[in-house]
């Protein structure tokens, strides 16, 4: 087929404009609806992912406000208990599986290829597939909620409450299958990230020159790969118990209710770090830009990321301190849960040192990072508290824990995420966000957050359990609950300002140049927003902060073809160029494969035979996906 082509075009034969034209012709998406469905551009898919995830954040936030309305006064009748249980289950599942994990992965999908200096993510079609599957899972869950069939068993779905005997109807099945959808998409992205980082880094970007965000995303991807099979196993066995009568969780037939908790938390604890590590990477990447100094302690920071990743698999039992496990085991898990504070401490101290040595510029992303440090340290310290078995027996499943994990998840992950949005918004859209609205958003969110969640520590110690839809007027919780409910309005207002700013800036924001913050990493070496091919020429990296070491100049590689989607494959450790590999062109088959997968997964809530019959369309779609079409990308 090579001989049929008129000529092979290499970038060295063209001038700048001609090169850009040729690259756009090869990499650009087809116009129209069809092209939109078929696109495999990592930036387009990541933008969709991010927008979808933020839509789920808004929906989840509205659920939280509804819960606060119900709890504002004792014995309120605003929401009935059945709906309330659905709401808090939806809030937790939605925030964990449809917002936090996907949004962090979406940031990785957007940023990792740009930061390692390549033209697209590895397995771009898998990437498209992953988005469609995620969307289907989200729609399934929310549709169920609208139809009064949402799961009502908590985001942790403990058996036997979620099991066949006590979980009547399809509610728990919908939860379990939503998990399968989102885990499928998460696993796909994890594989892409690992392979992108291992094989597609710009020449010269050896392991010790990888940006910290990319390191964080790499560790996160490994956590996904090792932890998510556990929840897949859990949700599948739950559905099997409910549908075909397996006995995994039936103590009378040799099963065990605690088995669920072990498997769920074996996933559930790493899950927290799947959300938190990317946030840490964001902080380590944004902070140096706003102190105009390289981060202090690159190596300890990388080691801390890896150590956190490894330790996160050794502390799932601290979610089960009150189930009556042997004393010795509990002591071990106390020690390991406490030990994870050490890598967290290393990170905090390295950031403080960076701040101390640099010249801080107080722009909005920087404000969110300072807010993050203040808030996350509290969350980390309350984490140390609940890691202690005796302490935990008093606060487990109370509002103290609610306060703790909101400090960790909002303070520890959402603040850095908002910083990241303010920081990379100019790169993603080509426009700056408003500094004034940004400050309003920050202060409203920061103050609103603390006023909302700090009193919950006290409520927990005063004996208020979690997941209650109401409480009696005789109990001394009314005042604080009202206060918390009012404060949550302020927090919500902060997010409202943020969303207004984001939408407004998309259209009216001042134009951003290539590198508005004078940042050191490669994503700022291309135009804002980046073209479909990311970089005109693949950069060659000679330094950890390539844009600072040689201001105004970029060393690049030449000799890539432009008539097919071509990128460089480099070695794992040294990033020496190995080959010019092609990247898959766009295709609609990932979309059809996702539709076929969705049909199979939803059908399988009703009949086990769906696994057999539903697999056939999936197989057909996958064959269509991989069957060669004679495109230049298939040459070798």
């Amino acid at each position: 087929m090579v001989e049929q082509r008129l000529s092979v075009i290499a970038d060295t034969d063209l001038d700048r404009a001609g090169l850009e034209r040729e690259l756009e012709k090869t990499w650009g998406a087809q116009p129209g609806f069809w092209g939109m469905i078929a696109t495999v551009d990592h930036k387009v898919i990541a933008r969709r992912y991010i927008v979808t995830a933020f839509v789920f954040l808004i929906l989840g936030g509205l659920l939280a406000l509804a819960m606060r309305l119900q709890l504002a006064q004792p014995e309120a009748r605003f929401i009935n208990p059945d709906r309330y249980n659905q709401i808090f289950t939806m809030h937790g599942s939605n925030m964990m599986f449809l917002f936090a994990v996907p949004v962090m992965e979406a940031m990785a999908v957007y940023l990792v290829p740009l930061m390692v200096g390549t033209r697209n993510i590895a397995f771009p079609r898998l990437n498209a597939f992953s988005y469609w599957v995620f969307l289907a899972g989200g729609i399934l869950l929310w549709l169920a909620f609208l139809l009064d069939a949402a799961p009502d068993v908590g985001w942790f779905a403990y058996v036997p409450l979620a099991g066949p005997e006590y979980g009547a109807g399809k509610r728990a099945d919908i939860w379990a299958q939503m998990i399968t959808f989102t885990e499928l998409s998460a696993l796909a992205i994890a594989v892409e990230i690992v392979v992108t980082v291992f094989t597609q880094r710009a020449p010269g970007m050896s392991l010790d020159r990888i940006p910290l965000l990319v390191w964080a995303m790499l560790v996160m991807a490994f956590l996904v790969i090792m932890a998510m099979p556990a929840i897949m196993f859990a949700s599948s066995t739950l559905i099997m118990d409910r549908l075909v009568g397996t006995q995994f969780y039936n103590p009378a037939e040799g099963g065990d209710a605690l088995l669920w908790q072990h498997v769920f938390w074996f996933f559930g604890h790493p899950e927290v770090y799947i959300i938190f590590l990317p946030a840490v990477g964001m902080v380590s990447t944004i902070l140096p830009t706003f102190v105009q100094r390289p981060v202090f302690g690159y190596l300890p920071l990388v080691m801390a990321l890896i150590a956190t990743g490894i330790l996160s698999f050794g502390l799932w039992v601290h979610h089960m301190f009150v189930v009556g496990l042997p004393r010795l085991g509990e002591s071990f898990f106390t020690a390991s849960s406490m030990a994870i504070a050490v890598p967290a401490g290393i990170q905090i101290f390295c950031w403080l040192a960076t701040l101390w040595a640099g010249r801080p510029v107080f722009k909005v992303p920087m404000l969110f990072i300072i807010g993050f440090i203040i808030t996350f340290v509290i969350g980390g310290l309350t984490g140390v508290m609940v890691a202690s078995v005796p302490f935990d027996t008093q606060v487990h499943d109370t509002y103290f824990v609610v306060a703790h994990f909101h400090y960790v998840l909002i303070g520890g992950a959402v603040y850095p995420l908002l910083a990241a949005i303010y920081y990379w918004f100019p790169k993603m859209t080509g426009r700056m966000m408003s500094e004034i609205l940004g400050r309003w958003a920050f202060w409203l969110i920061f103050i609103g957050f603390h006023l909302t969640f700090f009193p919950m520590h006290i409520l927990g110690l005063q004996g208020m359990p979690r997941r209650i839809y109401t409480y009696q007027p005789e109990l001394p919780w009314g005042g604080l609950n009202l206060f918390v409910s009012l404060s949550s309005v302020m927090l919500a207002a902060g997010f409202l300002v943020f969303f207004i700013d984001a939408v407004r800036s998309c259209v009216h924001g001042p134009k951003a140049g290539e590198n508005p913050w004078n940042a050191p990493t490669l994503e700022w070496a291309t135009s804002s927003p980046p073209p479909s091919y990311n970089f005109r020429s693949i950069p060659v990296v000679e330094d950890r902060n390539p844009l600072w070491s040689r201001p105004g100049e970029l060393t690049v590689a030449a000799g890539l073809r432009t008539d097919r989607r071509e990128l460089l494959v480099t070695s794992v450790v040294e990033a020496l160029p190995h080959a010019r590999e092609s990247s898959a062109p766009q295709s609609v088959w990932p979309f059809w494969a996702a539709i076929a997968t969705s049909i199979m997964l939803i059908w399988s809530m009703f009949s086990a035979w769906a696994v057999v019959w539903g697999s056939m369309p999936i197989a057909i779609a996958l064959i269509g996906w991989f069957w060669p079409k004679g495109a230049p990308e298939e040459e070798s």
Partner: protein
Amino acid sequence: MKRTLLLLPVILSGCAGVQSALDAQGQSAILLRNLIFVIVIVCSIVWLAVMAMLFWALLRRDRPKPEDSRTDKPMQTAVIAAVAATVVIITGLTVASFYTTRGLGPVPDVDVTIRVRAQQWWWQFTYEDREPVHAFQTANEIHIPVGKNVRVLLESIDVIHSFWVPSLAGKQDLIPGRENVLTLRAEKPGFYRGQCAEFCGLQHSHMAFVVIAEDEQNYRQWEATQRATPSEPREAEALAGKAVFMARQCSACHTIRGTQATGISGPDLTHVGSRMTIGAGLMENSRGSLAAWIADPQTLKPGNSMPLVPLSAQELRQISAYMESLK
């Protein structure tokens, strides 16, 4: 009994510490509260120290040039010192919690053994005795002697629940297919509220109970009363209520010892009139609240297992009178 009734308004008017880990009145709760204070104080100091470092780092003047590497050495030392301090503190807290756990270990001498069977959404308590005839059942309320070790055997007959009386001890789950044990020991007489702390379905919010700690003599007296079969009601209305109770759906689910009511799916009502609350801590026990509960349990506690039994107003009055008479 009179004392109980006198104190009733006190507990129901919500005196602080009714159900609070900070208002510790039991042996283990006191140990736990001390540990909580120690850890919270240590952590607060750590947080203040980190904040001091943060603000110093943010606000200090004379900044070195970015390429100046003379600051690297002291920074390295400072970070290493801070990490070492973290390790020391973490180790200290681990040791402290280890010793607290040891202090909470099982005790050899037990004076009272209570078997708890949690179910959606109430608590069944059985006071065990070597002679089975002396064992008796109550619901959503236990009495314990002050200063004595009480062993609580925890079982669940449906989903997972958690037994938690914060003023007396930390919580412990009740898991179907397993049995857990908890020791309670109240150091002061009083009323301690407990509540289910593991999400157990629709009415998880209304699954409370009361622990009444009283001195040995009062406790023995209460125990003797509970063990006895209630006498025939004297009031005519209550007597009529008994007839209605036995003829209608009530007796299919509830037991009243000494009568033909032997249902087992609802709480044992043998001495329901002596209890402080009804509906698993939902309402104060009075003739009026009993009537309200029996008239429409599904509005007061939607989804609970007690059905709405159609009764005439007169029947309702009679049954409530009968319930109240069962002291």
